[in-house]
């Protein structure tokens, strides 16, 4: 870091530990930032589209994961560069808001930054660039809304939803079974969806993974699956018409939070205490039993004696049920979570048609299925696969698909994929560019170029000639006035994405363009980076 000196040659100390910090200013800072962000975008670029490749990520502990999901890749890369981190957050906010298109948003940001770099070289002021991008973004969004189509999600057995899910799953390793998995995802979402309010509570869909079998064996369970078994090996393995008592207090003598001592000073006290203790267990079990419950699920542990008493009273029980599962069960079965034994009443019990233990493989692992819950229809998707990496990736893919379907239920407008929407926006932005009379014109035009980068990238990943295929698609869009012409990634012989049934949600596309533009604007405003030297 450069130092400032006063008249006598003594250095001014402006920042603390100035000597150990490094500083980048002006154009140097812009370029460094842009290059770092682009490096991240470049990594993701090859994952885009149905023929995109996966990334293998090795965690600090040596665990391997293989994924195609943009948000997961950038998260696990452990990026340390401050600007590059902005892109990580970009991908994650797309994931949080929309759940899909996490790769696309980063790639688009990368393309925009690439364009910004050339504009900077031309000597255009960064703020002008970002202004231009902003205006172009508005135009693109407007156009996107105008070309969006409403689809009937009910029609033809929810065919449109299945297709949209297939589009989301198409780029993943499970793409071979995209139709089956898409159907599972659609059924799952529709089961829990509140179609009147157009809302889906994704908490009601539990995704459970279990290695073994293959991806084909993935199935939907109309109930809740919890990775636990009965607390006593000899309890009933199946409870029909279950009345569930959901407890968050252990079957153990109470432990007051206040520190206290019970002093025993005579044999009588000792005996009394013993009786008291026995009484506790008997009472606890009695309270549960009296309420009419025929199964107890507890978030905490059981004492051996209590456990046996439960068995003796024909009261199957499950211990150490995780907090999230407790909540899910409460929602689904209408059970109230009961924090104290004294408060158990028959009204607070949840109801389910059947609770039973199921077994997998040779290693004797068991899980509990709660089916036909009374209130909402909570569902579980049980994912199977040949290895841990496959099931993990399948889980992420299904999550994406579920998000897409949820978005469609909220807002049934779609645009077509295969880069067609980006291309249409690019053409519109280009047209608008000529109307801009100031310096921003260049930035607007560059924005169009950046949008074109997406279909370009798609074509490249599919082994097509990117420039030829984008040029062809562009000219066809113009001459045929058809905004649905895109890149024929799957080589099906048609470029009309409506015929290929490549659906993407409007909300996802809009969000992608807006978020990417915002982040790029933010990066373009940074003109000074001060960081510790060793960073």
């Amino acid at each position, binding site marked *: 870091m450069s130092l400032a000196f006063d008249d006598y040659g003594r250095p001014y100390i402006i920042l603390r530990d100035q000597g150990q910090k490094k500083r980048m200013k002006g154009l140097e800072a812009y370029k460094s930032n842009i*290059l770092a962000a682009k490096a991240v975008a470049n990594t993701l670029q090859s994952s885009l589209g149905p023929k995109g490749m996966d990334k293998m990520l090795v965690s600090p502990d040596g665990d391997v994961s293989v994924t195609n999901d943009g948000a997961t890749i950038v998260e696990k890369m452990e990026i340390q560069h401050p600007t590059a981190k902005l892109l990580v957050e970009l991908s994650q906010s797309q994931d949080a808001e929309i759940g899909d298109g996490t790769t696309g948003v980063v790639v688009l940001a990368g393309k925009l930054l690439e364009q910004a770099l050339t504009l900077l070289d031309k000597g255009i002021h960064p703020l002008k660039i970002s202004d231009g991008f902003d205006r172009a973004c508005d135009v693109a969004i407007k156009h996107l809304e105008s070309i969006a189509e409403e689809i009937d999600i009910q029609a033809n057995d929810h065919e449109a939803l299945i297709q949209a899910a297939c589009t989301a799953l198409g780029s993943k390793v499970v793409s071979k079974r995209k139709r089956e998995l898409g159907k599972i995802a659609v059924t799952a979402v529709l089961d829990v969806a509140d179609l009147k309010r157009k809302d889906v509570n994704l908490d009601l869909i539990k995704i459970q993974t279990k*290695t073994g079998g293959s991806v084909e064996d993935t199935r939907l369970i109309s109930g809740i699956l919890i990775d636990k078994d009965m607390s006593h090996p000899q309890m009933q393995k199946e409870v029909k018409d279950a009345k569930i008592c959901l407890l968050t207090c252990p079957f153990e003598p109470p432990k007051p939070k206040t520190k206290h001592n019970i002093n025993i000073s005579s044999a009588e006290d000792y005996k009394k205490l013993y009786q008291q203790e026995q009484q506790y267990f008997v009472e606890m079990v009695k309270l549960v039993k009296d309420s009419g419950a025929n199964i107890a699920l507890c978030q905490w542990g059981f004492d051996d004696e209590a456990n046996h008493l439960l068995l003796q009273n024909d009261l199957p029980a499950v211990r150490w049920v995780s907090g999230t599962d407790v909540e899910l069960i409460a929602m689904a079965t209408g059970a109230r979570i009961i924090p104290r034994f004294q408060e158990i009443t028959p009204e607070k019990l949840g109801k389910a048609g059947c609770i039973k233990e199921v077994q997998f493989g040779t290693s004797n692992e068991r899980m509990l299925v709660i089916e036909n819950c009374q209130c909402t229809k909570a569902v579980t998707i049980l994912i199977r696969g040949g290895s841990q990496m496959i099931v993990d990736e399948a889980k992420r893919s299904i999550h994406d698909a579920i998000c897409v379907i949820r978005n469609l239920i909220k807002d049934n407008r779609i645009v077509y994929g295969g880069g067609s929407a980006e291309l249409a926006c690019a053409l519109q932005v280009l047209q608008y560019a000529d109307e801009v009379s100031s310096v921003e014109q260049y930035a607007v035009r560059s924005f169009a170029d950046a949008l074109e980068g997406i279909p370009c990238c798609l074509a490249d990943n599919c082994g097509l000639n990117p420039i030829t295929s984008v040029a062809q698609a562009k000219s066809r869009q113009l001459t045929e006035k058809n905004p649905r012409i895109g890149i024929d990634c799957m080589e099906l012989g048609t470029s009309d994405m409506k015929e290929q049934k490549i659906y993407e949600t409007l909300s996802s596309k809009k969000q992608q363009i807006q978020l990417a533009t915002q982040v790029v604007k933010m990066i373009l405003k940074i003109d000074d980076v001060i960081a510790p030297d060793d960073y």
Partner: protein
Amino acid sequence: MDIVGNVLPQVLKDEATEDKGEMARLQSFVGAIAVADLVKTTLGPKGMDKILKPTGPGQEMTHITVTNDGATILRSMYVENPAAKILIEISKTQDEEVGDGTTTVAVLAGELLREGEKLIQKRIHPQHVIAGWRIARDVALKRLRDISSENDINSQEFHDDLVKIARTTLSSKLITTDRDYFADLCVKAVLRLKGSSNLDYIQIIKLPGGTIRDSYLDDGFILKKQITIGCKRRIENAKILVANTAMDYDKIKIYGTKVKVNSMDKVAEIEAAEKEKMKHKVDKILKYQPTVFVNRQLIYNYPEQLLADSGITVIEHADFEGMERVAAATGAEILSTFDAPERSAQVLGHCDLIEEIMIGEEKMIKFSGCKKNEACTIVLRGASTHILDEVDRSIHDALCVLITTVKNRRVVWGGGNSEMQMAAACEEEAKKVQGKQAFAIEAFARALRQIPTIICDNGGYDSAELIQNFKVELQKGNQICGLNMTDGTIGNMSELGVKECLRVKEQALMAASEAAELIMRVDDIVKCAPRKRERA
């Protein structure tokens, strides 16, 4: 620096690395193929074993393992390469899901990638390779299911099939010379389960000494514990109470309790109370009128003496698994409270005879004539613990396969027959498919055919010659031909009695192709900086 000369800022953490494109792919191919090559010599009836020697500090250094089991070998290896880790992972899953074919699955995935590498070198896009593999896999799977046959579960044929499958599984193991004996033993054990898939009921006890031949199947249940001194050693018509309760002293479970006394007398009083409490418990137990008392936890002298005085045989310190088995076998309930003696008939387990027996040098307790007759025990004998461990693993494999077969019931011919058939199906399909995918389908066929080839090579036979003859034989329509690994010829599998379980083959095919696909799709490997470990 990039091509134009810009200095690229550092994006990842210091020690993190990123490999892209060809470099990444090369890395995964090398790793996966290396792992497959490592285990492939163990494949088949003439496969060799590996010695596993642990590294690192501690006494375990001296404990070595000799094994032929793919999953065991792979599990014990420490590898750095991420693709190799995927192969290890599928082998583990195969072990958990079906218990056998753990080597096959790793080798098949490795061979697929070896073929895949050649295709990539021919400039075929990985996605095209994958597309081809997917077609091939479906075709192979269909053929596999078509050639499988099913027998009625109670028929003699099914029973014979089971024996043959067990023989085939065991033939690649250390006990291959005694495979008939052990196959029979395993089948008997599995048939006792009557279709249940709970391997817990089959207990395996390993005792060094004697020879492998001295191993036997005992139809009772054997607990590796001793009867407490001073109790009867032989009980007929035993009523068994299985408990999980503290029999040393009952600590008070109420939180924050402390004993504070001000004189010696009081101490004595408390002690007496404690003793009385225990006596009270024993009395309650006695009300159930058991003749045998099995407790999971340890039993102190005082209650033990009380129980023994009443003529009850006491077995203490049964581990949890052993206890669960006793409970399951004798139909007892595991008790922790003893306040309902009226339920005595319901909670007590029953068996005809309990006696202390000697196997080798060790005393054990045998429960025979149990209420639920499903449980049985396989007693393994052998010259060293290494042999015993390996025999244990082999028997476990065989049992898993048998249980899977009982569930699934479909069987295929062994001796490489199923792989060759699948390969043939893929090749037929390749002729019909247009486009580059056809290359990948052919590659898939070649990879499948590698399995019998490796089996031949491991046997020291001329694999090129044998496999070609095999192909011709199949082409002629001889559906039941296969490798005869004793003579090095193509034989009739039905005469040789070599059969395999369909489910094992299915799972191996699916898991291997899924893993190969997963690795094939990777074009970028990002390794995070390793976590710094504090030195102890």
